[in-house]
């Protein structure tokens, strides 16, 4: 969008103000719908990669070997210390020079996911650390093997702690994914931009894209609070115990 484009856009808006019918037409158009699907798919794939990388990094940070801890530290330093936009353009424009020629979507998921992993690792580590060493000791004293201690004592408690921040990361990812428009992946923002470049109806196209973003984030915030509610232990756990009410009378 050059300066001239912007002036033209302003002129055209002056010529005929906001057209609700055009907005409605965009909202139901196949282009915008596919753009939204692409945004959603990009976010889910990047977040999934971020979660996997983050878990590996979090475990690596606790590793007894200095070489692994050093590698992991360098990873976080690199990916948190440079703009994700730079990482995106790097994956798209520089990797081919080294013979790695990936389609735009793969570059986008790679850059967003690897970047996300660095942040996710910190979230996961804080969750795992929040479960005190005494809890692990008690589980080991009962005769649990190490992986069962992790699975049944540490992770259930850590998960409850890290779900809200992971939800935030996901909502953030939905919006961050707009950056991949610069490498030509046709998600919501690029769809809106390309549509507008034909007729200069920026107000309708961007409003349509904005409404899609709001719809996506709203849905995910609702899903997040549903998950949080299901993890709020009291009601569900109570039910599990109350499910055997006959017991005390049996023993009595």
């Amino acid at each position, binding site marked *: 969008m050059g300066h001239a484009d912007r002036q033209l856009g302003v002129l055209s808006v002056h010529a005929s103000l906001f057209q609700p019918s055009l907005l409605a037409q965009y909202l139901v158009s196949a282009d915008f719908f596919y753009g939204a699907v692409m945004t959603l798919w990009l976010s889910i794939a990047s977040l999934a990669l971020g979660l996997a990388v983050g878990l590996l990094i979090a475990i690596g940070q606790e590793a007894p070997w200095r070489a692994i801890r050093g590698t992991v530290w360098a990873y976080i330093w690199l990916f948190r210390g440079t703009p994700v936009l730079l990482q995106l353009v790097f994956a798209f424009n520089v990797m081919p020079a080294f013979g790695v020629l990936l389609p735009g979507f793969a570059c986008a998921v790679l850059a967003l996911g690897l970047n996300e992993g660095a942040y996710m690792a910190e979230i996961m580590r804080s969750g795992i650390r929040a479960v*005190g060493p*005494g*809890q692990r*000791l*008690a*589980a*080991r*004293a*009962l*005769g*649990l*093997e*190490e992986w*069962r201690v992790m699975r*049944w*004592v540490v992770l*259930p*408690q850590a998960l*409850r702690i890290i779900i809200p921040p992971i939800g935030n990361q996901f909502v953030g990812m939905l919006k961050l994914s707009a950056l991949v428009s610069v490498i030509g992946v046709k998600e919501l923002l690029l769809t809106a931009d390309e549509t507008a470049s034909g007729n200069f109806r920026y107000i309708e196209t961007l409003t349509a894209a904005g409404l899609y973003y709001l719809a996506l984030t709203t849905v995910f915030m609702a899903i997040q609070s549903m998950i949080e509610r299901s993890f709020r*232990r*009291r009601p569900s*756990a*109570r039910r*599990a*115990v*109350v499910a*055997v009410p006959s*017991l*005390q009378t*049996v*023993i009595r």
Partner: protein
Amino acid sequence: MTRLLDAVAIWKRFGTLEVLKGVDLSVTPGKCLVLLGPSGSGKSTLLRCLNLLEPIASGSIMFEGKEIAGTPRKQAASLRRRMGMVFQNFELFQHLSAADNIAFGPIRVKHMPAKQARELAHHLLRKVHLPDKAAAFPDELSGGQQQRVAIARALAMEPALMLYDEPTSALDPETVGEVLSVMQELAEEGMTSIVVTHELGFARRAANEVVFMEAGLVAHRAPVGEFFNGSAPDRVVRFLNRMHG
């Protein structure tokens, strides 16, 4: 009578710090042994060495007729199932209700059906006098109640031996009694136990034998009557007098 647990010449170091310097300790089935001694004398470390939570530098630990010192990690976990442990800070699993805490070991370690494990949990809650706290979560219970649930959680594994690591040190004074009386009832029923504590009253009432540790060594050991009748070495008597305030 043959010994349930017989530890001989246990050495334990943390870096250059020698915590246990050749400790001998044994307990016969059905008996209650109380470990006394100033803090830092290695009592708690000794307990953790006995159930293999801490590796020892050298020494022998015979448990149920088998040498267990130096058992590889994997088998160590299954040996620990035979020894219940109660911690100073209870360490109930915060995400589970009282009943689920107790059923946890049988379900996750012994693969007992959930229904049967819950029945066991309710039975044990009655045993520790908390029949109506099945659904309560740890943060809804007093310290004394949490510790009694922790005792029930250990009992659920049907251990041959109970290890108590200062079970009342973190409690409000008014809840100490309820925990000690549960422990005493168990001892009277013949539950073999080793108790690290500063509660001399409990030692008098429930112990069969008292071991006094100091600076990583067993300084004195005697049957309970003899231990408290004034015939103990001077420094033990001095310690006991200090404990009485």
